[in-house]
């Protein structure tokens, strides 16, 4: 790891950083004062890591205060308490809810050094030129606004971004292969009576409804026009199927936080459930077999990014841009990718990963030596390959994005009823 040490000085030597230096105002004058700057960041647990805050202090000099909350609480805070944060680390579907409030400010892409290297998903929506765009709130549809002060979304790359993409992944069902003992290939298995009392789904309406839709569609019960933007009738039918399953005792528990999902799976309470990638690795690192099962219907994907509070200005704003550029310059990307997420600028992260790690996590190659996460836990032995394969295999199979719908109010009430049913 020592060769990967990263500082302002070393940054200036690299080509990518030369761009950053020309795009940013010279930071010489406030080199002293920057130590006094504190930026308050909040977001979901996935990327609010203390390691990142420590590294920021080392590399950039200022203090980053992190607060981790669940998705609902994040939305609530971003929408109602704009002065309580400087940086919002939120998901794109949350952005669709929060952006119209004007609590976040548009970001000038000309100040983002690695903007051109950001993967296509976050720019024109296409992973590769041939890709089709999945249903739901695809990040590029809420990624740009008309200009400074804009509260709208525009379809094209306008030069003003709402969120700077930082982290994303393709989600599927997690299973305990040792307790199931047969291949699982479809989302429909979540409601298979074989797993009665041993299934779980997450209780975050915007994400849970998508998992539910993937299941209902896979069962052949409902054909959706657009899973990411259901009609009230589609919502009713989806929730009816889920409620019926719930009353029949299909679900062992619902989960709301990352840790709950890990505990349910690790303790054997649940053998099949909606899950997030690092939760799988957390279960595996306890020596318990757990597979992030690729399914024939494809993945439900999500993406997160950093938004800046509209009250941020002057030196703090400059520091925030510094932070964003640093975020995309590789260290964080490597840190996140070694936990199973993807970086928005994968190529910069490559320098911060060993060839074995890059091969395992990004290229889907079998590991040549044991793969560890940044905390030292062994996640894969030599010879094992990542569930689902390479970056392009996984992100190319996305069936829908986490979404917020036009009928969101209605969906939320129906979801609440489902949870209470």
């Amino acid at each position, binding site marked *: 790891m020592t060769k990967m040490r990263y500082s302002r000085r070393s940054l200036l030597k690299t080509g990518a950083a030369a761009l950053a230096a020309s795009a940013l105002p010279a930071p010489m004058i406030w080199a002293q004062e920057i130590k006094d700057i504190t930026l308050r960041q909040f977001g979901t647990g996935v990327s609010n890591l203390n390691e990142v805050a420590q590294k920021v202090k080392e590399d950039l000099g200022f203090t980053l205060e992190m607060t981790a909350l*669940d998705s*609902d*609480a994040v*939305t*609530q805070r971003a*929408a*109602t308490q704009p002065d309580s944060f400087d940086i919002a680390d939120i998901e794109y579907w949350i952005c669709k*809810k*929060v952006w*119209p*409030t004007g609590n976040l400010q548009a970001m000038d892409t000309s100040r983002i050094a690695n903007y051109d290297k950001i993967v296509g998903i976050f720019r024109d929506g296409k992973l590769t030129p041939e890709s089709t765009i999945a249903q739901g709130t695809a990040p590029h549809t809420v990624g740009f606004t008309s200009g400074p002060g804009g509260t709208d979304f525009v379809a094209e790359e306008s030069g003003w971004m709402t969120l700077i993409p930082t982290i994303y992944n393709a989600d599927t069902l997690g299973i305990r292969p040792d307790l199931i003992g047969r291949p699982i290939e479809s989302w429909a298995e979540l409601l298979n009576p074989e797993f009665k*009392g041993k299934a*779980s789904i997450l*209780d975050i*309406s915007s994400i849970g409804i998508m998992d539910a839709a993937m299941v209902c569609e896979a069962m052949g019960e409902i054909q959706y026009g657009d899973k990411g933007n259901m009609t009230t009738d589609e919502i009713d039918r989806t929730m009816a199927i889920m409620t019926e399953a*719930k009353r029949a005792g299909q*679900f*062992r*528990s*619902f*989960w*709301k936080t990352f840790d709950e999902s890990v*505990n349910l799976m690790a*303790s*054997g*309470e649940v053998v099949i459930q909606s899950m997030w990638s690092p939760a799988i690795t957390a279960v595996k690192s306890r020596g318990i077999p757990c597979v992030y099962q690729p399914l024939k219907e494809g993945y439900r994907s999500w993406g997160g990014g950093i938004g800046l509070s509209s009250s941020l200005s002057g030196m703090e704003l400059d520091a925030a841009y510094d932070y964003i550029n640093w975020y995309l310059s590789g260290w964080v990307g490597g840190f996140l990718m070694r936990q199973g997420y993807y970086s928005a600028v994968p190529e910069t992260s490559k320098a911060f990963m060993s060839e074995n790690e890059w091969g395992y996590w990004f290229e889907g190659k079998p590991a040549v030596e044991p793969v560890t996460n940044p905390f030292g836990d062994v996640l894969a032995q030599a010879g094992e390959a990542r569930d689902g394969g390479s970056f392009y295999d996984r992100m190319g199979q996305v069936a829908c994005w986490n979404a*917020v719908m036009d009928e*969101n*109010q209605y969906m*939320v*009430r129906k979801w*609440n*009823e489902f*949870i*209470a*049913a």
Partner: protein
Amino acid sequence: MPPESITVAGSFGTPPLAERAPRQRALASNHVTGWLLALPLTLVLLAFLVLPILMIVVVSFWTATEFSIVPAFSFENYEFLLGSDVTWRVLLNTVKYAAVTWAITLVLGFTVAYFLAFHVRSQTWQTTLFLLCTIPFWTSNIIRMISWIPFLGREGIANSALLSWGVVDQPLDWLLFSDFSVILAFVHLYTLFMVVPIFNTMMRIDRSLLEAANDAGASGFQTLWNVVLPLTRPGIMIGTIFVVTLVMGDFITVRFMSGSQSANVGRLIQNDIGLLQYPSASATSVMLLVVTLMVIGVLLRLVNIRKEL
């Protein structure tokens, strides 16, 4: 010396109203002193209890969009709330939890208090055992509740013990994430709230009454039923109010112990707040408040606590 009934004195002990004093003697009278003494508590209650409740009532008539609440006068929230069969089921569930928990904590609380008050003769032991009852309260009640989860789980201690003893051959699923586990946690958390007031009233019972009953030829059970029980009614009632209000207002125990599979009214409110539906959450709160007050009202009709204390 029986312990003071600290918890109760605060809520029911309003200063006695002296007869109206003539205006000229107003400053010196007990009447004014009484009002002045009551003033700080009144102000605190107004600011931190009455005003927030009024606010909740007002907001319950507002409407909400996804991320803002809009002042209005609309019955929409109540219409949705009272028009949904889920609400009624959840309300019924809430009452069910309260009733079952109440019954179990009452039996347990009464037994423990009876043992402490009448069977333990030495006052040192009485105090020691009473303090022992409070030891679990030294840790957070969420931790006490969550520690049940690994114990009751499918591969938890309880199931592995039952399996190894050969009592069952399949792990029992209903031990965790069920109504059973919810009520178990409630009983664990709230029995002490029953023990303390019942113990308190039992200690005030004049022992000569028990002797008199004995002399008159009453059996142990007859004494218990005809003498002790009626005299402990105020304690039971206070314990009941504690347990019922705590269980009816709970959301976290139901959330964790049922694995979100069951719901009570508190969970409805919590979900609404999580989804930024403040007006709807307020309307649900108002409904819960009304129901709880009705229950308390009925309880207070049964026993005049102020008279009997």
